[in-house]
């Protein structure tokens, strides 16, 4: 009986680790898309401050925070304005790629969990 319990615990541990890793990779991909495609570039300062931070990492919660760490990041993100460099640069440069990728994040985590069970 103890062996079965240990086996279930080990499987759950593998699933949790796989889903955390999938989330990390997905967050990294979103930030790359954001900074390289959507983030407006003038001096390059805004783009260089793109930050991917693990803010909670416990046995039950794994949270990543994506941000741009400069004073005017919020203004560029929230004020509608035409940005031309790079060609797809726009306001909402972090929110738009996040929304575009959100279903892929869920799919990535599902797939990672499935793989961890199969392996």
């Amino acid at each position: 009986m103890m062996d079965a319990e240990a086996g279930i615990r080990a499987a759950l541990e593998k699933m949790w680790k796989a889903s955390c890793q999938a989330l990390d990779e997905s967050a990294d991909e979103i930030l790359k898309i954001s900074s390289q495609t959507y983030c407006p570039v003038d001096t390059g300062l805004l783009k260089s401050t793109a930050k991917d931070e693990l803010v909670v990492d416990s046995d039950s919660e794994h949270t990543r925070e994506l941000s741009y760490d400069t004073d005017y990041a919020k203004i560029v993100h929230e004020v509608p304005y035409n940005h031309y460099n790079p060609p797809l640069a726009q306001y909402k440069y972090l929110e738009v790629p996040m929304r575009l990728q959100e279903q892929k994040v869920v799919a990535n985590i599902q797939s990672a969990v499935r793989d961890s069970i199969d392996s």
Partner: protein
Amino acid sequence: MTLETYLSDIATYLQTQGYGVVGSSTTSTPIQIGGYYESTYNAIFLTSYGGSDSNEIVSTEASSINPDFQILVRHSSQQTAIETSASIYRLLRKKVSWDIGTTHFIYVRGKAPPIFVRKTNSGFFEYSINFSASLSD
């Protein structure tokens, strides 16, 4: 034609609720759609900015489109800007099965309380409120 007109319907609703007048106005707060100007007057701007794909199941209704939109409140008084943006946020943050103008909203959901954006060079305070919506197409 809901995707093309839903912002107009929301702007008209804000007008009926007393927030201003749709279009240009010198006597009341203009509620303007799609545009944003470095102007020196109090105003409310509605802007659509993408959204999510409709393959998530949000209701039993067969066909929906899910745009995101932003309402930007600008006012010379910070207190008024705070109060107006908070009031609009409360008004629209939890609408379900809501018919306004020609649009049937499956839902309108506030993403977050108002965000202070900046004080403009001309001394106006701007607050941003962001929403997700789902419309029958």
